[in-house]
């Protein structure tokens, strides 16, 4: 059981670091997907440990939500890219004081 959870933690951390440090919006998105998949892994591991299917059902929910979120997010990124010609996260910083 433990190796799966450790793996999940490692992948989650990689995803967090990627969100915090990468400049390209698409890469940030991919890292978000990484975090989601890491939590999926943890859910399935704990489901196997408990012997019921609750965790696996939850993992399904997470996948559906991730898919929907990707649709919306990619649409936003494409719109920004069309008007600003840049996919850098740092460039979209107008909402400040």
């Amino acid at each position, binding site marked *: 059981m433990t190796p799966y959870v450790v793996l999940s933690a490692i992948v989650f951390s990689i995803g967090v670091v990627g969100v915090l440090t990468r400049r390209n919006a698409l890469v940030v998105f991919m890292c978000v997907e990484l975090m989601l998949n890491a939590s999926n892994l943890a859910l399935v591991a704990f489901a196997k440990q408990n012997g019921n299917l609750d965790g696996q059902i939850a993992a399904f929910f997470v996948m559906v939500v991730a898919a929907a979120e990707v649709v919306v997010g990619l649409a936003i990124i494409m719109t920004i890219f069309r008007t600003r010609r840049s996919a850098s*996260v740092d460039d979209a*910083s107008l909402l400040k004081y």
Partner: protein
Amino acid sequence: MFVLAEGVTAPVVHPGSADGVLSLVWLVIALPALGAAVLLVGAPLAKGRLDRSGHLIGAALPVVSFLVSLVMFFSLLGRGSGSRQVSQHLFTWFEVGGLHVGFDLLYDPLSALFLLLITGVGSLIHIYSIGYMEHDARRRRFFGYLNLFVAAMLALVLSANYLGLFLGWEGVGLASYLLIGFWQYKPSAAAAAKKAFIVNRVGDIGLSLGIGLFFVTFGTTDFSTISAAAPRASEGTMTALGLLLLLAACGKSAQVPLQSWLLDAMEGPTPVSALIHAATMVTAGVYLIVRSNFIFDYAPHARTVVVIVATVTLLYGAIIGCAKDDIKKALAGSTMSQIGYMMLGAGLGIAGYPFAIFHLLTHGFFKANMFLGAGSVMHGMDDDVDMRHYGTLRKAMPVTFITFAMGYLAIIGFPGFSGFWSKDRIIEVALTQNWLVGALAMVGAGITGFYMTRLMLMTFFTENRWKDGLHPHESPSVMTVPLMVLAALSALGGLMLAGNWIVDFLSPVTGDPAHENPPLPSLVISLIVVLIVGVGVATAWFLVGKRDVPREAPQDVSFATRAARAELYGNEINDGLVVGPGGRLVGGLTTMDRHGVDGVVEGGALAIGGVGSVLRRAQNGFVRSYALSVLLGALLVVLALLAVNAA
């Protein structure tokens, strides 16, 4: 001081019902009140049509009141001396809790005499004002205010309880303010009006607290109930009531320490000075004390304080009168001093009350006479009040001179005139009880002789010091006829004492005095007083009459003269003790409000704004920093959960 003899109680106010012609007593107040309402409220609505005839209405109504008062007085005389107190219930003013206050009128010998004085002298002054205020554009208002004053003063003396008296008390204070400041465009007049009202207010604290104490002690403010319950009240309460009433009387009657407003009040037109600040309003304090005899008779310590205040004031006013060159201010100082005599009489207890009232009446005659005479002189001298610009007026204005002389002889106590009888009686009663007070009263009579002779000499005798081009002439008969009536009263007013009439007339109200013999025979006392007055007159003759009177007031004079000119530094004392600290207190409170209270409110807002401007730097627009803060927050939540679960 004088204590009630064993078994003697102050008379109880026990009025019967007002019937017959006495039931018209409400009319006496209603007529001038109607005049005031018509002239002040109704006339502007009539769009100026009353401006030409308003003064005639205003002058006629007090005359009718006087006739009604006269008829009622004769009816009262017709009754036996035991049934001369009547009351009339007009309406219930208010009823709250256990306090039931009605607007009741009490007509008895004391109020009868006051009614005659107020309406009689008041009518003469109204008639005089027709001539004096002839060229004033706001004449209608003047008569409206005069009528308001007469109505309020009548309400004061006719009320059967202290609350109605207070209503009249405040009413005359208001009328005084309106009339002193009648010439509104003069800043000095406006300031004098404010000063009079504010100093009066200090005295009113005494009356307000007194009314509260009456309610607490007796459950009512009616004279009849209180006078019946007075013998059983504690002496401490009675002394407190006496002192509070004395404070009120000091304010209204310009006694030390509340005397500073009277000389400034001379800014008003001369008929106002004659009516309000000589004959009637300033005597309201004396009325209050005599009417409250059932309080003072049981509070000997309060009476001692009254005597002290009175003696101080009678000398204070006399000293001020010696150095004033303004004829009206000299007469005002004289008024202060004479009211001191009346208060002295009132403070001497049952033996003194009738003589205090007697002196009040004679003073009303001769002081109103002299003020109206001064107005006549001013009328001829183009409204100049400085006596240093007068001189030799006895030839230019003979009628004014003769009538003024009657008042002069009365006030100095020339034998036979009214003032001689009234002042000597007060001195006699004073000597009987305390030789020092009596001696000081005699000294005051001497000083009175001095300054009144100085006034007469500077105005009517000495050399001609008129301004160039001035031709003084006698005043019109609408002004001189009232002067003649008042002069006759000044000369003959002493008849009220014939056969001890006034003492017997007032004794149902003030009580029967225990017969104490004066230390010297009455004739000897009168002789001594006449001699002292003669010394005063002679001093004035040598210092003022025989020398040349300078046209400008000399500056290098003795300290006493400078002090008297500065009214014995009364205004400076008030400034130092009250006005200065009061101003500083208000300044401190304003600063505390502006910087303290407002500071806290605005400071709080500023602080929050400051914190906000620091915190908003976190909104830097960078998504990655936002993500970092989300991570940190999530971390905090996890740690908190771990901590809680472990604990």
